[in-house]
């Protein structure tokens, strides 16, 4: 799916005024220059509530141009309410082409997932971030967390991981799993599942993170080290799924559970809808789809 | 023989600020030398300042004037003017004090208490333990008590633990503040033997012994402290 929209609104291009976009671009440039460092910016009121991606939308609005192709996903899916409305927002205000295809997009805005299809040089992945400060729930004082970042004092984060192992026998955190960026700054990939953490590591794409309510922007430039924290004897591990996607048969991908009926029937399918559809179009068949087609 | 302790012109009075600054003279112009291997016993009626003199030598009481030289292995220290650190080092290495009262430390066994006193002076563990056990035996402390904290011991048993503690290390100078008070004859004799041992090892001792029999046996000299009576200020 690829459509072209014409700007039919009285708003400035991509909704934000030019001064605001310049201000945000400066913040983005600074963020790229200091990988993982949270740059404060003057977050604007957006025509959507906090928690719906106001940070990501402002970042996207500041970098988007008429020649871009935009993809928006929420939980890996292109067709959830949030994804659809943000996509429509930019179709309307930025006259930009939109797509659901990962490889066709130049800018991908996401709320959690990183697409299964590997990103390439020139692509920009924009994350919507609710809580940019990884130390926040351990240390409530902003003055103190800033100092901890300044001095790279990150022992406390390991205390949290220690607590997990002591309580659960393993590091129980499955999303927003803390990472070190370029060996210097501790970064929250919030609320990305830890399954996707390895995709951030040395990705050829530019990764930008926008937190609207918390007024922070941070970035991982292409080919930057993003290392998940762990212990020598409890190394970082991604969650493994014990079955392939029920629809496309893909293995080693992130799966969502879908309830089929009220008798306990369920299936596990790709959370990345584009990936699943692409595979099915290529003829791959998972367990359930296979059964249905046999029946038909 | 060169003296181990030289006391020269020492005087002491207490100023009782809570009683309108009343001056309480204790002793004046105390002068006394004690040589290695010598035991000097302080005599005189109670209240004459015997115990205060021992406390001044130990650095427990300050002095108003005069000098108290204690000759440690690495040179003399004037207790009257030494810094707290110097006094602490002197006490650890050279200057011991044996009183009849044990300041019991909860939860530390009698044996460990004595071993610790020897260890503080740098005597290694095995030798310290051997010495401590031998002392407890000589002072007739029943073996079943050795591993117990002395807090629950009888007064006499605590006193003997404390004596063992005072005698276990190799101090060059020992101050004995009525160590035999209220001991029975057998244990008094044991303490006398310990004092003789120390003399043989060249330890200089200054003591207070109320028991006349003990005093006669251990004293090389008896110094009547009433001659140091302070002149009223």
């Amino acid at each position: 799916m690829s459509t072209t929209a014409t700007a039919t609104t009285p708003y400035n291009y991509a909704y934000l005024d030019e001064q605001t976009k310049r201000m945000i671009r400066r913040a983005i440039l600074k963020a790229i220059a200091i990988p993982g460092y949270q740059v404060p910016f003057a977050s604007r009121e957006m025509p959507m509530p906090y928690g719906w991606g106001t940070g990501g939308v402002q970042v996207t609005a500041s970098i988007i141009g008429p020649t871009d192709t935009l993809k928006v996903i929420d939980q890996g899916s292109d067709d959830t309410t949030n994804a659809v409305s943000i996509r429509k927002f930019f179709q309307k205000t930025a006259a930009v082409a939109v797509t659901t295809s990962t490889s066709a997009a130049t800018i991908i805005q996401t709320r959690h997932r990183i697409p299964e299809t590997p990103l390439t040089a020139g692509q920009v992945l924009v994350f919507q971030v609710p809580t940019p400060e990884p130390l926040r729930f351990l240390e409530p004082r902003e003055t103190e967390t800033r100092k901890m970042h300044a001095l790279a004092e990150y022992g406390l984060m390991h205390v949290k991981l220690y607590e997990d192992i002591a309580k659960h026998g393993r590091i129980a955190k499955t999303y927003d799993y803390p990472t070190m960026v370029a060996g210097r700054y501790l970064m929250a990939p919030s609320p990305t599942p830890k399954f996707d953490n390895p995709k951030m590591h040395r990705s050829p794409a530019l990764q930008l993170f926008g937190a609207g309510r918390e007024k922070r922007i941070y970035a991982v430039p292409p080919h930057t080290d993003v290392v998940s924290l762990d212990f020598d004897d409890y190394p970082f591990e991604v969650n493994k799924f014990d079955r392939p996607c029920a629809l496309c048969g893909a293995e080693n991908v992130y799966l969502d559970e879908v309830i089929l009926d009220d008798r306990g029937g369920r299936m596990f399918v790709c959370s990345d809808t584009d990936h699943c559809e692409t595979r099915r179009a290529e003829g791959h068949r998972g367990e359930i789809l296979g059964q249905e087609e046999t029946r038909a | 023989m060169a003296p181990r302790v030289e006391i020269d012109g020492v005087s002491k009075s207490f100023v009782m600020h809570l009683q309108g600054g009343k001056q309480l003279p204790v002793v004046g112009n105390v002068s006394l030398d004690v040589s290695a291997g010598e035991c000097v016993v302080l005599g005189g009626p109670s209240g004459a300042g015997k115990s205060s003199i021992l406390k001044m030598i130990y650095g427990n009481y300050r002095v108003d004037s005069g000098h108290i030289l204690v000759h440690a292995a690495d040179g003399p220290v004037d207790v009257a003017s030494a810094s707290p650190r110097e006094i602490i080092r002197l006490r650890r290495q050279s200057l011991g004090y044996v009183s009849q009262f044990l300041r019991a430390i909860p939860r530390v066994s009698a044996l460990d208490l004595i071993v610790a006193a020897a260890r503080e002076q740098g005597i290694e563990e095995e030798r310290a333990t051997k010495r401590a056990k031998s002392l407890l035996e000589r002072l007739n402390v029943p073996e079943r008590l050795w591993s117990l904290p002395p807090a629950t011991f009888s007064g006499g048993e605590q006193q003997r633990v404390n004596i063992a503690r005072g005698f276990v290390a190799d101090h060059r100078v020992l101050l004995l503040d009525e160590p035999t008070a209220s001991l029975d004859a057998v244990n008094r004799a044991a303490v006398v033997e310990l004092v003789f041992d120390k003399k043989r090892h060249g330890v200089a001792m200054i003591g207070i012994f109320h028991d006349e029999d003990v005093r006669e046996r251990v004293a090389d000299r008896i110094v009547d402290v009433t001659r140091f009576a302070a002149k009223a200020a």
Partner: protein
Amino acid sequence: MTIDDQPLLSARGISKMYGQHVGCTDVSFDLFAGEVLAVVGESGSGKSTLLSVLSTRLEPTGGAVSYRMRDGTMRDVFALNEAERRLLMRTDWGFVHQDAREGLRMGISAGGNVGERLMAVGSRHYGEIRSTALDWLGRVEIDLTRVDDAPKTFSGGMRQRLQIARNLVTQPRLVFMDEPTGGLDVSVQARLLDLLRGLVADLGLAVIIVTHDLAVARLLSHRIMVMRAGRVIETGLTDQVLDDPREPYTQLLVSSVLQV
């Protein structure tokens, strides 16, 4: 046994003013390795202000504090940069608060509390961190089965012992203590003091302990500084000051206690 001839910490002319009000004024002393110094006085005497200045929690109005770092150099602690100062505070120094809630993370397990300093200086082996934490819990006499319980479920005495373990795990050379036995029951106090006395002697710690309790000073310290109205009015060997107090105020303090 040799005593180093260079002080570990040296304070010269320390003053702290709160506007017109004197916190403490003109305090000078040297503290040597392995030495325990008690600062005694009533509330408002300036002893806690002094402790805050010495431990760099408070900037003095005048005077200087220098410390012999692990590499042997004497450094002005207020000239250290923030990173050096914080590293010093969590490795070579300890601070035991009267209120354990200030010195502990109440929602983090006992093991995590003890392990935090280790992780802060780069330990990344869970098994080793945990066994070190267990070892320290044992040394401060906390039941090892409580390792995964948070201090909010601990009694006051246990919290205080946990705080001590948390501080000592990096083998500091100097520990500041602010009324460590304050607010505890008498029997709990005795046990804590006994434990502290043993640890201080075993580890050769230098300690600056602020207390209004002369019995605590008697049991733990080699030396005493008596403070009143922000000034040090008397100082000396602990047993000397307590048995032969010279200043009127010290005599009053000593005579006010039943038996120390």
